[in-house]
């Protein structure tokens, strides 16, 4: 065993060499990016993008009392212009204190101007780079404000503005159901297929006031951010916005409805009964008739009565049955409204084309090239809704007598 010391030495050397320090990244040297905004830089191709990253200030977010220290903002943003996304992000390092770290990215906001000119070039880097995870939501900054301003609106309850946008998106999706969130991988898929929907976000109030910390000292902040509308893209360019009922139709058709509230008329009293949809399921089926595709959309919805400002006795099953029918009618109109809009825009945002392919690949091969332009707008769409109101809450008949 005279080699023993030698072996030990070798082992120690290996321990140092094999522990893989090459790619070490020290936590304090990383700039953790929580949000990213892309705006238009200039009209020329050079410096066409203005990219803003929002970086978390860990010492401010982690909480705890810091006596005597000046309160710094919980996040900070850096902006640069450049011609490609990666170039611009690297340029930001001249301003940022450490290497930008993207795996914790929570939202990507794209300015409306860029969206109108085309977002096709923005996602290749995101898909290619191993650092990005493609599961974050993408939003379009709507109206007068730029994406940068949207990302910088301070909010009282959540210190990090991009986290606030993410949370608002989630709660709107879960409770209101009108604006479904669109993940980056879904956007990429849609860009490849031609048409895609992206959620919109808007500033309510003045953008300049929103960026100050005084904004969050008010009880009712003068500037707030709001999830609003679904942007309809065709060939990577923003075409139009879907709002309200038409936007909710998208959620119905794509089978992403979780919960929502719908108003029904009660006799002459308009919008008197509110029904909560608590469970919904939808399916799309395509059948080929005379070499032409026919689309069947089926929706199953279950709900409960939330509010009844009307004298109807909901304890009677016959009355409830009538409400079921009314609800079905209401959902059907929403779905049809959305389908008609999509057909008018000639963009197959629901990817019905793939369903045609599944139904009959030969028919699809013939109509593939002219699908969005000529065939989809003319295609028959049948909607079949089955809605059931399961319960009426803690009361049957309301105290209201009108």
């Amino acid at each position, binding site marked *: 065993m005279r080699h023993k010391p030698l072996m030990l030495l070798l082992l120690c050397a290996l321990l140092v060499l*094999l522990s*893989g320090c*090459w*790619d070490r990244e020290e936590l304090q040297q990383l700039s953790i990016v929580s949000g990213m905004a892309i705006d238009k830089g200039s009209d020329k191709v050079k410096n066409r993008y203005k990219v803003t990253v929002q970086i978390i200030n860990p010492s401010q977010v982690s909480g705890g009392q810091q006596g005597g220290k000046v309160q710094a903002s919980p996040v900070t943003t850096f902006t640069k212009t450049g011609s490609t996304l990666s170039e611009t992000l690297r340029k930001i390092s001249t301003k940022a204190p450490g290497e930008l770290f993207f*795996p914790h990215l929570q939202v990507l906001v794209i300015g409306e101007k860029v969206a109108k000119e085309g977002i096709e070039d923005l996602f290749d880097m995101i*898909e290619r780079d*191993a650092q990005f*995870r*493609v*599961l974050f939501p993408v939003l379009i900054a709507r109206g007068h404000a730029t994406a940068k301003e949207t990302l910088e609106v301070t909010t009282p309850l959540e210190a990090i503005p991009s986290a606030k946008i993410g949370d608002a998106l989630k709660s709107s999706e879960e409770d209101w159901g009108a604006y479904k969130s669109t993940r980056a*991988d879904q956007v*990429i*898929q849609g860009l*490849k297929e031609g048409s895609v929907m992206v959620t919109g976000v808007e500033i309510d109030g003045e953008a300049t006031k929103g960026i100050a910390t005084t904004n969050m000292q008010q009880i009712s902040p003068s500037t707030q951010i709001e999830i609003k509308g679904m942007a309809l893209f065709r060939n990577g360019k923003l075409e139009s916005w879907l709002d309200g009922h038409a936007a909710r139709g998208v959620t119905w058709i794509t089978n992403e409805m979780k919960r929502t509230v719908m108003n029904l008329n009660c006799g002459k009293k308009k919008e008197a009964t509110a029904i909560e949809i608590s469970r919904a399921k939808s399916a799309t089926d395509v059948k080929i008739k005379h070499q032409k595709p026919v689309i069947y959309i089926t929706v199953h919805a279950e709900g409960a009565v939330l509010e009844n400002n009307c004298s109807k006795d909901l304890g009677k099953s016959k009355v409830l049955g009538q409400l079921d029918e009314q609800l079905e009618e209401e959902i059907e109109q929403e779905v049809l409204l959305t389908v008609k809009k999509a057909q008018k825009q000639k963009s197959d945002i629901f990817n019905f084309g793939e369903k045609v*392919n*599944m*139904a*009959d*690949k030969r028919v699809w091969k013939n109509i593939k090239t002219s699908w969005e332009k000529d065939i989809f707008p003319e295609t028959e769409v049948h909607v079949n809704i089955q809605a059931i109101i399961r319960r009426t809450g803690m009361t049957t008949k309301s105290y209201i007598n009108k």
Partner: protein
Amino acid sequence: MEKAKISVIQLFALMFIFELGTALVVSYGTSAGKDAWLSILFAICGGVILSFVYFILFHQYPNLLFTGYIREIFGKYIGWIIGLLYCLTFLYICGRNVREFGDLLVSSTLSETPLLVINITLVLVMCYVIHLGVEVLGRSAEVFFVILLLLGAAGNFFVLVSGDVDFHQIRPFLEHGWKPIFTTAFPHLIIFPFGEMVVFTMLLPYLNRPQLAKRVWPAALISSGLILSWTVLLNISVLGLDAMKRSTFPLLKAVGKVNLFDFIERLDAIVVFTLLITVFFKASIYLYAAVLGIADLFKLHNYRQILLPIGTVVIFLSLSMASSFSEHTKEGFLFNYMAVIPLIILPLLLLLILIIRKHFKKKMN
């Protein structure tokens, strides 16, 4: 040849891990489109037929290595040259595997680390296990087989419950007819990885119960083939065909999509672990076969003498075989056509000569 024996279960584990090898992680069978899974099933059938060819050859010379009975059948000189060519092929594929492993690590996790460093560390470990002999290789395969199954079960479970799976994405069935399915299965899928099992003809003489080779081989081939087919099916139903065709390592992407309650996420590590285990064994088996073959051809008493020099050759090969990953993939595509000769045609030729010889011997008697 060393004095060693491996058990049937160890051989099964080695074969199973070998088959999953890199095929599990790299873009595999995508030229068959949405029917890639079916194409793999066809390739399994081809692989089973091939396994019988190899087995009959082994049955005739149960105590000889492949490089040994090649010389018996083809004659001393031609057999020697062909045997050497086989060893070189094994070395080349070994280099390919090391390269694929290194490239995956560099592009997914270790972006700053040079490829050379990753490859050297892998090859060093491979050399070490081969130095210890085939018994150690077999035993460690037995252990890692269990770990691999656990990793696979965990990965599958999380992907399936994550809700990203949409099996409708593999429809329509036979989108472009039967042709792409067969052109993908033959030769690409049947060579990689099923035909590659020819390397086990170098390991079969170590089996403690040679008569069971006939069963172990198809069993390992079919079970691993089914797993490959299932994985491809799962990749397509998670990513969709387009995203799968686009990505260099589809499985990494598919598993990376898992996000349960914002809590269980970033499971890519499972895939990297799987690849680490499988590639280590696959490349080790190739290196072992190559070293053993060369030792046999040059009549060396001990293969350990040439282990490190040949390991260096593998490192050199893995770095210099292609300047980019795209070139590497293209080379692999071309290699699949060339590999038809050593992996399918030559074994068949061997069998043919063997049969003709027997026939004549019988007549003479």
